[in-house]
């Protein structure tokens, strides 16, 4: 798909000799990016698609229970995880829109998960959930005298924890974006509605939401596309385990790659394209206006 798109859209430099000097410079200055794009996007994607051409790969994928599980996990991650995250972000953007000095300070702290790299914090959570030595189970033991569950050994819990880690990391970013949208709403509208005696729900329903829904939906779709590529949250927390039951498509592709099954890796990615491309198309329409 990338190939057909770039082939049809590729600029055909009009090599008429009457190019003005600025246009010559334009081509020269554009060249570095074009080179990067050809060498590290067009060629790899084309090569990858060529590798994924054999129907046998798709049969192998279809017969691999790990693939089906990863596809389901990815759907859960996107549909449930992202929507929960965006709803919380929408709610918190209202909270951070309140003008209070302490809320300003809190917003500075709140952005920390986004500002720090994800690897150390994910590993930190991983150890917290360690069944023997982690602080969670030690606290459970202290207060109840019982051993806590082996958190990451239950696929459902482990996946939920991976979603939790993802939310922890990216919630601040989306809250900030939605906050910007919220602050752009004219204050007069709220004052007028106060005069009319509207309650908070009516204010949200008739003022906030209509002004923010486009932004909200754009953000949700964008977050879904990016989350498809979220390798760290799953890989560093569960490693795809237990028994390869918590893989998502991004970790599965890398798993096949590590097992030297490149055509399977590419085929699994190609299988995701029917979901990715409409989202990408929609986002590109949005952004290139």
């Amino acid at each position, binding site marked *: 798909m990338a190939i057909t798109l770039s082939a049809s859209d590729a600029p055909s430099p009009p090599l008429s000799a009457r190019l003005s000097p600025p246009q010559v410079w334009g081509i020269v200055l554009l060249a570095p990016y074009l080179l990067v*794009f050809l060498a590290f*996007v067009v060629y790899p994607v084309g090569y*990858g698609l060529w590798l994924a051409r054999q129907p046998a790969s798709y049969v192998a994928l279809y017969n691999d229970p790990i693939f089906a599980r990863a596809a389901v996990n990815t759907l859960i991650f996107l549909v449930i995880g992202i929507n929960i995250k965006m709803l919380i972000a929408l709610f918190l953007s209202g909270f951070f829109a309140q003008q209070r000095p302490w*809320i300003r300070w809190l917003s500075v702290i709140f952005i920390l*998960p986004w500002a720090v790299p994800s690897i*150390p914090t994910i590993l930190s959570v991983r150890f917290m959930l360690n069944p023997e030595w982690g602080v969670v189970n030690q606290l459970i033991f202290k207060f109840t005298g019982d051993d806590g569950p082996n958190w990451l050994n239950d696929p459902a819990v482990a996946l939920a924890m991976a979603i939790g880690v993802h939310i922890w990391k990216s919630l601040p970013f989306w809250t900030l974006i939605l906050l910007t949208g919220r602050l752009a709403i004219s204050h007069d509208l709220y004052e007028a509605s106060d005069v009319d005696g509207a309650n908070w729900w009516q204010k949200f329903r008739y003022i906030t939401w209509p002004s923010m829904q486009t932004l909200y939906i754009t953000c949700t779709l964008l977050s879904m596309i990016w989350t498809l590529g979220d390798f760290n949250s799953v890989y560093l927390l569960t490693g795809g385990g237990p028994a390869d039951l918590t893989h998502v498509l991004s970790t599965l592709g890398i798993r096949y*790659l590590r097992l030297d099954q490149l055509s399977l890796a590419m085929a699994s990615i190609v299988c995701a394209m029917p979901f990715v491309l409409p989202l990408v198309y929609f986002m590109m329409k949005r952004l290139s206006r």
Partner: protein
Amino acid sequence: MKLPTLREVGTEAKLLLIGIPVFIWTMIPIYHMFVFAISPKEDAFSGKLWPTHPTFHNFSIVFHQQHYFLRDFWIQFWNSTVIALAVGALTLFVATAAAFSISRLRVPGGRAVMNMALFTYFIPAAFLAVPMYRTMGTYGLLNNHWSLILAMVTIAAPYAIWVLKQASDKLPVELDEAATMDGATTLQLFRLVYVPLMMPSLVAVGTYAILLAWNEYLYAFLLLSKDTDITLPVALGNFLAADDSPWELLMTTGFIYALPPAAVYYAFKRYMVGGLTAGAVKS
């Protein structure tokens, strides 16, 4: 002084009821990491909320590379730094040139290039990693820092170009016309007019690229493998290879690794918020 009304107290209490959980939720993993970093081994594994004998001994072990997992700490730190700075510089160069060309010089086909770049921006990075890995092998760049640098430039450039293009579309055309009338060549226009005016966006984009490269795990882990070639995040991941990993040292190293990007983020927050959120907000 006016006493707060009951209603105001109620509102404040409701806000606190949201604010306190938000604070706890945000701080837990970071606090846990910090406690580990200042705990001796026995304290770290006993699940204490604050160590009985806080110490900076772990930092000293990391800085003096006194553990098997840490024997290349400084060289890995150096690798991370060099790669991040190289990605920042190269992305800035490639993206500024492209944005200038598309937005100011209106080069034919510029819009198509912009669309291709945007398309790349939306391919999930973990998907591109699979064919990219094989391609780097074909180019003979595996286990070479250039592979990671070029891969990260590929990922950072589309967004950088887009942000810079948006910003430079806002500069008045008259500026270019006036400069050209005064006899400025295209390069002078670029160097003396365009770059100075674009400074805030350039800072934002450069910071974005540097942080992206410093924080990258997946590509670094695929493309580099020798202990003296890898970057810090890969070294952190390698701690997991052993069953009896020294978690207190892992957390200490992680803490050290997390500090520079956090500092950079907060130092350039002004630019980051203005330049980068604009991207997603436009709807």
